[in-house]
């Protein structure tokens, strides 16, 4: 991310008519859209019955949002994200054979919620640290160990492998799983993962 060289960020596919460069879009996405993830997940979970579709739906919402934002930055990120999410769900409902009635009803009611201001987003530093610690606690022990050694103590992958007495491949998996879960915990506000698996 940050240490990415500038030249790599500029994607050849980017059109000159785009309102945002790749790196601007990334910044906008991370700052304005990702903090909405917990709310978005709640919304998707409430309005879609098949829970195994949720991660896929979230990704769909993000793609639509970013495609639109690169042409024009939406004034109100929050309202925009939820409008996209709602339209996506409606389109899916239309495509499916069975129409989940309560889902449609919920969506009608949603118009009000969309434009209301979001919760206070300015987390002060102290809360953020607590939150990160809590997130670490949720990771399975071996994943956490690998991540702590790498991230906090600054060990490289092969050093973590030596310390934990496992192969580099296993360390890779632990680190990737840790990141995957941390993203869900930190952005999606999920607390139900990790320990159980």
């Amino acid at each position: 991310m940050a240490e990415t060289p500038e030249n790599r960020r500029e994607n050849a596919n980017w059109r000159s008519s785009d309102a945002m460069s790749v790196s601007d879009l990334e910044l906008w996405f991370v700052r304005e859209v990702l903090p909405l993830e917990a709310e978005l997940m709640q919304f998707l979970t409430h309005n879609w019955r098949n829970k195994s579709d949720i991660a896929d739906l979230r990704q769909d919402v993000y793609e639509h949002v970013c495609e639109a934002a690169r042409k024009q930055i939406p004034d109100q990120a929050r309202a925009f994200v939820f409008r996209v999410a709602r339209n996506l769900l409606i389109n899916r409902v239309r495509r499916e054979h069975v129409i989940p009635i309560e889902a449609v009803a919920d969506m009608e009611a949603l118009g009000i919620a969309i434009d209301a201001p979001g919760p206070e987003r300015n987390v002060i530093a102290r809360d953020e640290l607590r939150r990160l610690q809590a997130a670490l606690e949720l990771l399975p022990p071996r994943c956490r160990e690998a991540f702590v050694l790498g991230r906090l103590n600054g060990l490289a992958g092969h050093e973590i492998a030596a310390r934990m007495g496992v192969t580099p491949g296993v360390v890779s998996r632990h680190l990737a799983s840790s990141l995957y879960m941390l993203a869900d915990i930190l952005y999606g506000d999920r607390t139900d993962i990790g320990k159980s698996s």
Partner: protein
Amino acid sequence: MSGAGEEAVSMPAADRVGAQAAQWVQRRQFWNWSEADQRELDVWLDEAMGHRIAYWRMAAAFERTERLVVLRSSTEESVLHLRKKWFRRAWMTAIAVAAVVLTGAAAFELSSGTQERIYATALGEHETITLADGSQMELNTDTLVRVSANAQRRIVSLVKGEAYFTVRHDAMRPFIVVAGERRLTDIGTKFLVRRDADRLAVAVMEGRVKLDALNIQAQSPATILGTGDVAIATADRLSVTKKPARELIGELGWRRGLLVFQHTTLGEAANEFNRYNAEKLVVVDTKTASLQINGTFRENDVEAFTGAVQDVFGLQVRNMGGEIVISR
């Protein structure tokens, strides 16, 4: 002790891309990273917007855990143990400072490895930032900038909002402001840059600035702006006019918390107030919106403005559920 592979998390098939992105980020952060690896990653990123977004999300999660570094302790023995106390104390100070900064104009570091910083102001906020080289930038309301600097250049990316720059010129290390597809390079300068959704405005208070397109293929020639020049750039057009110093100073009123209107239409004035205040002004009809006003107001004193509007034009002002509606 449990076996190594047992905890491998099962990823839902729908989020294979997320799992791949996590794999890429950890590979890049914790293992040897060659140019060939980078090329491989670039190919994957270019394959689909979805790949890019998933990667951003994972990379952002990784960056967020940077704060944890100061907590290194419980698992680490020996040398670090001795330094633990010091770390903790340093961290508490850091928290105290960060808490103050965050409530003001959120400034945080993206990564400790590079000289890159993000500065932002909320609605109605101002913030003056002195950069490492002594250059200053004053951020107006609802503004987001990213500053990255190395030995060759200083780059400020204006993602949104408005900023006034007082640049300490260094011929060997140009100061560049990037806003969308446009680029400004200082030639010894004080200048103001404002980026709205569909246009970019640049006003040069002192010195000269070079304005060109970021994308060389765009074939737009560079424009040199001198003192008093005001450039307005939209996606396909650029206009440059010279303004008298008096009017330029008005443009900078926000630095003192003031909105200065000179032959400004009511509609534009309302928009200006709306940039600073959560309670929005709405001018109902176009005829009312085109009335011209002069005057200086505190940017958060909407009442003074609506009062003047009532007195001078005899217009109606009504508060309707968070919106202040101005009509005949």
